[in-house]
């Protein structure tokens, strides 16, 4: 990442480079442990989106959009939504919409337990992260092309 004129000062950029990976990792942790500890798909998804927004604020919009373009975000969002719907529809295997179709629910407190809940968490986090990033990118990009600046 070159230190061109976009974005904030060198200090902010350096700190961002160190922390943004950690924030992303923390978001993923929260998502994956949603069924055994506080958090879950929604909070984790927002944290993931925040990590990209952090990147965008510090380095300017080009750098962040290179990592995750706006169209890619839209596609990811639709995919997340479809995945969630697909999980719901798979419940028809057991006879009902949203049926928890894992007969064996796994040992409590394990990462791989609780049937559909972790899968739903992942789908939601994908959707929320990509969606919020898309909203934010749209607002920022619009500001850039607006008349008053």
């Amino acid at each position: 990442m070159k230190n061109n004129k976009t974005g904030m000062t060198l200090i902010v950029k350096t700190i961002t480079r160190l922390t943004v990976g950690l924030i992303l990792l923390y978001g993923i942790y929260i998502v994956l442990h949603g069924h055994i500890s506080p958090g879950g798909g929604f909070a984790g998804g927002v944290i993931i989106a925040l990590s990209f927004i952090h990147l965008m604020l510090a380095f300017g919009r080009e750098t962040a959009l290179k990592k995750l373009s706006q169209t890619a975000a839209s596609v990811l969002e639709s995919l997340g939504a479809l995945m969630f719907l697909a999980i719901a529809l798979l419940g028809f295997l057991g006879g009902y919409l949203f049926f928890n179709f894992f007969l064996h629910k796994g040992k409590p407190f394990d990462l791989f337990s609780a049937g559909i809940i972790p899968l739903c968490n992942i789908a939601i986090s994908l959707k929320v992260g990509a969606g919020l990033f898309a909203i934010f990118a749209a607002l920022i990009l619009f500001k850039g092309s607006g008349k008053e600046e």
Partner: protein
Amino acid sequence: MELQLLLLFMIFAAVVAVEVEDLLSSVIAVGAVGLGLSLVFLILKAPDLAITQLVVEILCLIILIRATIKKDLPLLRDGRWLFNTTSTLVFIALFLIFAYFALKELPGFGQPIMRVAKEYINNGLEKTGATNIVASIILDFRGYDTLGEATILFTAVMGVLAVIRSVGRIKDEK
């Protein structure tokens, strides 16, 4: 007791947010309300909500600041200011009085009935396998609600992308 203090702090911050003249300060004050709310959730034993409220608050603040920065603030009062404000205040006062008497019929603070909720607490772990009962409710018992919630966010994203288009209509040739 700390609960009441925090609530009073939130009310104070909300009044500041409503009445202060600088827009940026106003946005920051509403951020204080949101963070206070996050703490209140923690006191009320809702860690899931505290985390979510915290991150959502940060996101909201960023969005609102992007919207307000470098914008003007008109400060005007029209002729019927007094009348309108009085009528609004009277309406609010009536609302609060009505609410006060109605709230007396609720079960007291700290003693919910938990008619349905008992079922979730007692059987949640066996039936869903999740140790976080809130997660088991939102994604299994009431998963359909969460489908709606995800759809709302999707709708909002689509709405923002639709509203933000710079050209809405294809102009006629004439």
